[in-house]
């Protein structure tokens, strides 16, 4: 992400404010997408880390400022807002990880070398531990007392999976031609829509999964 690096190097006040604002708006978008998407999206680790640094810096600045300065409370408020955004974003991801642990870890295992992981390394550790503790609990209390042929947990039956066919509201950020919404079936023909920039739709989530990932559409 080029503007992040740029932001790190810049020292002049004006550019810093501008790029930090861009990071923030990206993070806001990531947060909204994450909130409305039924499955876990790619982790935006860079954004989170950058924003956290930013907060820490701001807090240091406040420490140095005079007491009772009006600007301080404005900055504090801004910090609070950003911190809420960050926590809410990460919390939302954590909830999904906890709910769909098995599914997400399966996906992670099937992931090809060139694809990006959806989990940040920390989230991966957490997911692993969470799954282990759940299974351990079930084994301890119930499974090991069951007849031998029933002692295993079959992920096909027990894994909670996100419903990709749920409907989402979306706004189109880039023109995209020919999105296949409905596969051809015996009764109906296939349905294809062209998405134009600025359009808003209610759609099944499944057809737009790659578009959300690439940022061509945003969820609202």
């Amino acid at each position, binding site marked *: 992400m080029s503007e992040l690096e740029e932001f790190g190097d810049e020292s002049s006040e004006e550019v810093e404010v501008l790029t930090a604002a861009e990071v923030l708006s990206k993070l806001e978008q990531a947060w909204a997408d994450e909130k409305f998407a039924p499955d876990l999206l790619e982790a935006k680790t860079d954004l*989170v*880390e950058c924003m*956290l*640094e930013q907060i*820490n810096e701001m807090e240091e600045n406040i420490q140095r400022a005079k*007491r009772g300065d009006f600007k301080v*409370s404005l900055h*504090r*408020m801004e910090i*609070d*807002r950003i*911190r*809420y955004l*960050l*926590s*809410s974003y*990460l*919390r939302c991801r*954590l909830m999904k990880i*906890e709910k769909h642990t098995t599914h997400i870890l399966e996906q992670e295992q099937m992931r090809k070398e060139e694809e990006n992981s959806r989990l940040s390394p*920390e*989230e991966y*550790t*957490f997911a692993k*531990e*969470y799954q282990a*503790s*759940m299974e351990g*609990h*079930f084994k*301890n*209390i*119930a499974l090991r*007392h*069951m*007849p031998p042929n*029933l002692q295993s*947990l079959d992920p096909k*039956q*027990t894994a909670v999976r996100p419903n990709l066919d749920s409907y989402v509201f979306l706004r189109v950020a880039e023109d995209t031609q020919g999105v296949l919404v409905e596969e051809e079936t015996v009764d109906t023909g296939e349905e294809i829509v062209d998405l134009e920039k600025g359009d808003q739709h209610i759609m099944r989530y499944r057809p737009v999964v790659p578009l959300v990932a690439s940022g061509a559409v945003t969820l609202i």
Partner: protein
Amino acid sequence: MLAEKALELIRELQRSKDGSLPPYNEDGVRQVLEEMRALFEQNQKDVSATVEGEKGLFSGVQLRHAALERNKRCLLAYLYNRLEEIRKMRWEFGSVLPGEVKYNMCEQEVQWFGKYNKMLATYMRSIGGVGGLDLTQDMKPPKTLYIEVRCLADHGEFETQDGNIIVLKKNSQHFLLRSECEHLIRQGVLEHMVH
């Protein structure tokens, strides 16, 4: 009736949907497991009888196997949903549970809670490298920096960020930084006053 005990467990979950945790039904769980054992033994007997040439036992075996699977499913659902409830409480009450909640948990559940606590803490500490981020703070979007709160219980002295010490006495009112007293509000020590 087959699998009735297991259904009873599920009903118990259904009844406590308001977010409270009913006592862990150790007896119920044990009875379900016992029923499973009995069903399984019967099945084994019938299977070996079939192998020896007896006819007509097969549908019974199948029925019992279905009951076994149903029992397993109900039991796991019971345990899973309880953990879910316990997990929610970590976010509500923080890392120390009130006594009456703990009283309703079985020993393994208490252990699981401890584990969950630990992994959550590890995760939150690792966010972003330095210091981490406490995700259990900032649960609601901030509206104002300071909020008016009223004490619902005696809490004793409380040091604010800028070094002032105030005494949180029952029914006293204060004007505090929201970020500082949020956890006290969730614990029920303070109440956010909305005008």
